[in-house]
């Protein structure tokens, strides 16, 4: 017994498979007796990098190209290895299926569901235009999940759709909630009076879930895609969504969530809102924006700078009494938060000073970056805000690092980390080895579309990370933020419980989680004014 292991690999030339399917196959293989580790993936650089970290960058794998599929397995002995490789082949030849009809073209699907009113499109970006146009021509609204859609296609589709009152949600829209149903990556949020328009996928998930957890609900949540608030699109769908929300009788207030729109687009959106809406607005733009509110919006508009504040302000406007009840739970007073964290950060060695935030949600990454920025904490990121430093190598953290693992460099040829936790598991262990790391911050995004058990999928890695630190005489603080609601397929409380059982600190919003990470790394020595500023300026909205 001991550390003996054998490795083996297979490469299938020009065999393309859905990354989700591959991830499932990898998971299956790992469960086999005698298998230590397994990776089944397309031969992209990212995947080879992972194979390398697993010690599985075998010569065949190294030679695999982008359109080749590789299987690499480490096992305890030859027999298990052989069996696992065979099993891999078998699983690969098995497409997932049910008993129902499936189609390969839009026309046949339309014939089968002639009164369809919505389509979700997640084809490769180059085909998105043709597919979406075909659907729009039939009067069907489209949630366009695809990435890499050429800008001119996006503009063409949105202009066409706008003229006909059709929604094109996306491209790159991860989340929508329509008629209380989760579309793509979304949470099981109850219906209610708040209509959300979002140009930021996890932003919509965070705000809608917080609203639900604060016991209110969402009428509809429309994800318009990050490109919509840039000048090349000029907010076409944001505007149409505003009209939809204005006309919708169940929507009492309209909440917007997005990274700061480009200036010209912001102005034109505000102008449109002034003329075409009468309802109360909450503008949740992550970051600083220059905003001259048009006259017609004054007195009915609130401005919020974080997701946290956007959700709270929306709740406050609909129900001041609920707001009073929940505000302390969600915006934990500074002293209380500090007291809670103190026993943990007191265990840190003096050499441990850095925060490493490993995010799967893009908007959550931005929100944390903003909070660190405001606290004057120097951070590196692969998706830095203006004035922050960019990581030279996104696979390697330096100093305080906030990394968005959902960025392209991590997802080429494999599933998003919200679905496939492999990348983050490996990264977590790497961070634990660094003696200067004090706090690791991670998000666990629940809901439809996500991994069936994101917390559970990280427990082994969390234990190992802690073990590595302890061996070295260090205490490692791990803060986990669980984004979701109890009705999600994963169950909010169950996920929270699993993390807490491993000593992970779980806090009620992402913003508070980021603040707690900073507080811990700085041993509670945060500049009082700055913190107050955050609590007042960022975790609360200003009404204008």
């Amino acid at each position, binding site marked *: 017994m001991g550390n003996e292991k054998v490795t083996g690999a297979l490469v299938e030339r020009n065999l393309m498979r*859905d990354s*989700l399917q591959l991830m499932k196959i990898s998971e299956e293989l790992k469960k086999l007796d005698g298998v230590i580790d397994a990776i089944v993936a397309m031969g992209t650089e990212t995947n080879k990098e992972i194979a390398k970290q697993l010690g599985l960058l075998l010569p065949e794998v190294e030679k695999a190209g982008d359109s080749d599929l590789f299987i690499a397995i480490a096992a305890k002995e030859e027999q298990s290895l052989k069996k696992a490789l065979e099993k891999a082949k078998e699983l690969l030849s098995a497409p*997932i299926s049910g008993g*129902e*009809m*499936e*189609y*390969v*073209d*839009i026309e*046949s*699907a*339309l014939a*089968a*569901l002639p*009164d*369809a*009113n*919505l*389509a*979700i*499109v*997640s*084809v*490769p970006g180059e*085909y998105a235009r043709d*597919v979406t146009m075909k*659907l729009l021509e*039939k*009067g*069907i*609204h489209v949630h366009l*999940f*695809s990435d890499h859609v050429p800008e001119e296609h996006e503009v063409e589709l949105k202009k066409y759709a706008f*003229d*006909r*009152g*059709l*929604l094109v949600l996306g491209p790159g829209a991860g989340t929508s909630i*329509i*008629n209380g*149903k*989760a*579309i*793509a990556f979304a949470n099981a949020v109850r219906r209610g009076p708040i209509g959300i328009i979002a140009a930021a996928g996890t932003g919509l998930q965070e705000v809608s879930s917080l609203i639900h957890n604060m016991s209110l609900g969402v009428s*509809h949540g429309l994800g318009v895609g990050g490109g919509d608030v840039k000048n090349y699109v000029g907010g076409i769908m944001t505007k149409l969504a505003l009209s*939809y929300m204005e006309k*919708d009788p*169940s929507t009492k207030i309209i909440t917007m969530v997005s990274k700061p729109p480009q200036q010209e687009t912001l102005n034109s959106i505000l102008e449109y809102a002034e003329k075409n809406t009468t309802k109360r607005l909450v503008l949740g733009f992550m970051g600083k924006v220059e905003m001259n509110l048009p006259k017609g919006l004054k007195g009915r508009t609130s401005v919020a700078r974080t997701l946290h504040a956007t959700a709270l302000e929306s709740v406050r406007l609909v129900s001041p009494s609920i707001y009073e009840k929940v505000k302390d739970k969600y915006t934990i007073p500074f002293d209380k938060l500090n007291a809670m964290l103190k026993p943990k950060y007191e265990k840190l060695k003096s050499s441990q000073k850095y925060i490493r935030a490993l995010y799967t949600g893009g908007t959550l990454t931005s929100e944390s970056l903003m909070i660190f920025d405001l606290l004057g904490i120097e951070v590196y990121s692969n998706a830095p805000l203006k004035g922050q430093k960019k990581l030279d190598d996104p696979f390697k953290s330096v100093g305080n690092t906030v990394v968005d693992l959902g960025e392209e460099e991590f997802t080429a040829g494999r599933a998003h980390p919200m*679905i496939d936790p492999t990348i983050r598991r490996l990264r977590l262990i790497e961070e634990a080895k660094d003696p200067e790391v004090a706090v690791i911050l991670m998000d666990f995004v629940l809901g*439809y*579309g996500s991994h069936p058990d994101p917390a559970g999928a990280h427990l082994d890695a969390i234990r190992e990370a802690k073990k590595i630190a302890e061996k070295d005489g260090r205490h490692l603080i791990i803060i986990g933020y669980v984004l979701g609601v109890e009705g999600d*397929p994963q169950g909010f409380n169950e996920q929270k419980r699993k993390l807490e059982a491993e000593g992970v600190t779980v806090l009620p919003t992402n913003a508070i989680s980021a603040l707690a990470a900073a507080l811990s790394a700085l041993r509670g020595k945060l500049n009082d004014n700055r913190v107050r500023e955050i609590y007042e300026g960022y975790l609360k909205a200003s009404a204008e």
Partner: protein
Amino acid sequence: MSNARKLFDEELKVINVGLKIFYEDLKRQGVRAVQVNYQPPPKLEKELKDKLSELL
């Protein structure tokens, strides 16, 4: 003229083109949906393509 179909507060009926997980999640929520395992149409010369759409 708009032929936009009614969406809000109408029963959702969804055509899912691409990732099957979205289809499965819709089914789980009791939404009527059909799955399209989209394959890009084969590349054909223009005349053939035109002829095909005329005859199909």
